[in-house]
């Protein structure tokens, strides 16, 4: 029935808007706590943050390396196919370097981190929520935003750009591998081409994107984890929702940042 569908679509829209609102509230609360906390005798939690940083890195590093290498190779092969028709195979290095740093490295890294670290954070906080551990924290007098959210958020804000730079490097090396092995280009020339094609803005723009993506993953995962109601099955739902919502928001933000940074 069309009206039933409309009602459901409307309910879904409201739910998504409400969740977005809660995400912003969490962002504001985290920002305020991060700035005002030190003045209230709640210094920044370095140790917890570094522990989270190591956790995110451990979870994602090898996966990011693998996917970045594959993407670099695929991109080189695909672009060679097109460029050969123009007799411009030597431009493969340029195309790979620019596409990877501006777009593919930050995007793929963020999607992988969302799947690995974002889901893990949502599951962790969701479990804490349904087993009353979050309530226990509050009764002890500890603020979950200060104690749990900020370390995770900051860790992601740092980890995603770092992983992206790493993916830049691996992706270009992957492209080089494909160029040398399949296209008969020389490694030296490929590297030189890549370096000359890149301007600082490419790398810098990619890092800006990565910071935004890291923030999105952290906020979505923490909000959804802490917002878990009910029992263990709800934790599973929160985890899935986190990954899907993160990816949607990451791609939407990608469009936005690309438009702002690169379109002249």
């Amino acid at each position, binding site marked *: 029935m069309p009206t039933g569908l409309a009602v459901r679509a409307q309910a879904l829209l409201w739910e998504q808007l409400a969740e977005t609102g809660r995400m912003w509230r969490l962002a504001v609360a985290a920002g305020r706590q991060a700035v005002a906390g030190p003045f*209230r005798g709640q210094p920044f939690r370095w140790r917890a943050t570094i522990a989270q940083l190591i956790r995110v890195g451990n979870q994602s590093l090898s996966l990011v390396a693998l996917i970045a290498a594959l993407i670099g190779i695929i991109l080189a092969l695909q672009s060679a196919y097109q460029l050969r028709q123009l007799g411009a195979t030597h431009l493969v290095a340029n195309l790979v370097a620019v596409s990877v740093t501006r777009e593919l490295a930050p995007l793929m890294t963020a999607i992988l981190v969302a799947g690995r670290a974002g889901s893990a954070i949502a599951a*962790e906080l969701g*479990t*804490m929520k349904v*087993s*009353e*551990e979050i*309530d*226990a924290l*509050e*009764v*002890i*007098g*500890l*603020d979950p935003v200060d104690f749990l959210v900020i370390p995770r958020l900051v860790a992601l804000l740092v980890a995603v750009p770092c992983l992206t730079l790493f993916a830049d490097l691996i992706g270009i090396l992957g492209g080089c591998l494909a160029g040398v092995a399949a296209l008969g280009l020389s490694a030296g020339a490929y590297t030189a081409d890549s370096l000359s094609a890149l301007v600082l803005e490419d790398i810098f723009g990619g890092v800006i994107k990565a910071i935004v993506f890291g923030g999105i993953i952290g906020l979505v995962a923490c909000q959804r984890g802490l917002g878990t109601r009910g029992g263990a099955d709800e934790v599973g739902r929160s985890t899935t929702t986190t990954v899907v919502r993160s990816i949607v928001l990451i791609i939407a933000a990608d469009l936005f940042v690309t438009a702002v940074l690169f379109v002249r």
Partner: protein
Amino acid sequence: MTAPTPAIEVRGLEKSYGRRRVLEGIDLTVHEGEALVILGGSGSGKSTLLRCLVGLERPDAGAVSLLGRDIFTAAPRELADLRQRIGMAFQSGALFGSMTVAENLELPLVEFSHLPESTRRIIVRIKLALVGLEGTEALRPSQLSGGMKKRAAFARAMALDPEILFFDEPSAGLDPVTAAGLDRLLLSLRDVFGATLVVVTHELNSAFAIADRIALIHAGSVLITGTPDELRACQNPIVRRFLDREAEPGPEHEGRLRELILGSEAPDG
């Protein structure tokens, strides 16, 4: 003679979830140093009341004051300070699963005391010994049995030597021997610390074992408060039904059954 400030004062507390009214005007006073048991059937709103008392849940109406301060008008900072003077043990323990037992107990000390690590270690060991969990420092909560989890949760609640201790269903879901042990533990803790005790339970045996006073919750409000003896003597039909149904399903119950089966031929009990 002026009465001393009560440890807890609750006035007109109301709380609904959606259209479901859980608390419909709770009035309750808990005196310093007493053990008050909040008794009521499952789903009667005991946990909700407890969550309102410690400020985890914001009621729709009414006021709660702990140690003389209204917790819903207090500044966040003031509330945080107040929370260091209370402790709560949750129904399922709510121990932090990512930490060891010792780290669980140490957390409040790390965050709110300036004690050096060696002193903290000693305090943790003493608190664990108090609840009979010596030697479990390095275990994870998942390695503890149900009763041990509750004991560890008691110990964590007492880490900062609070003035008021809240317990949600301390003996629910445990075998009778373990449950009785926990009841006795609660009383001895009260004697050691002189803290005010608020215990939520639906188990009559526990309630009568622990309580100085019992508040019976029914249909969202406090039906009656009184000492265990006053409750036993109370003739209010709802109180009687609650106490008789669970307390002693012995001869009296049998008599009623016989009456039902045999009709009026049965002799009156």
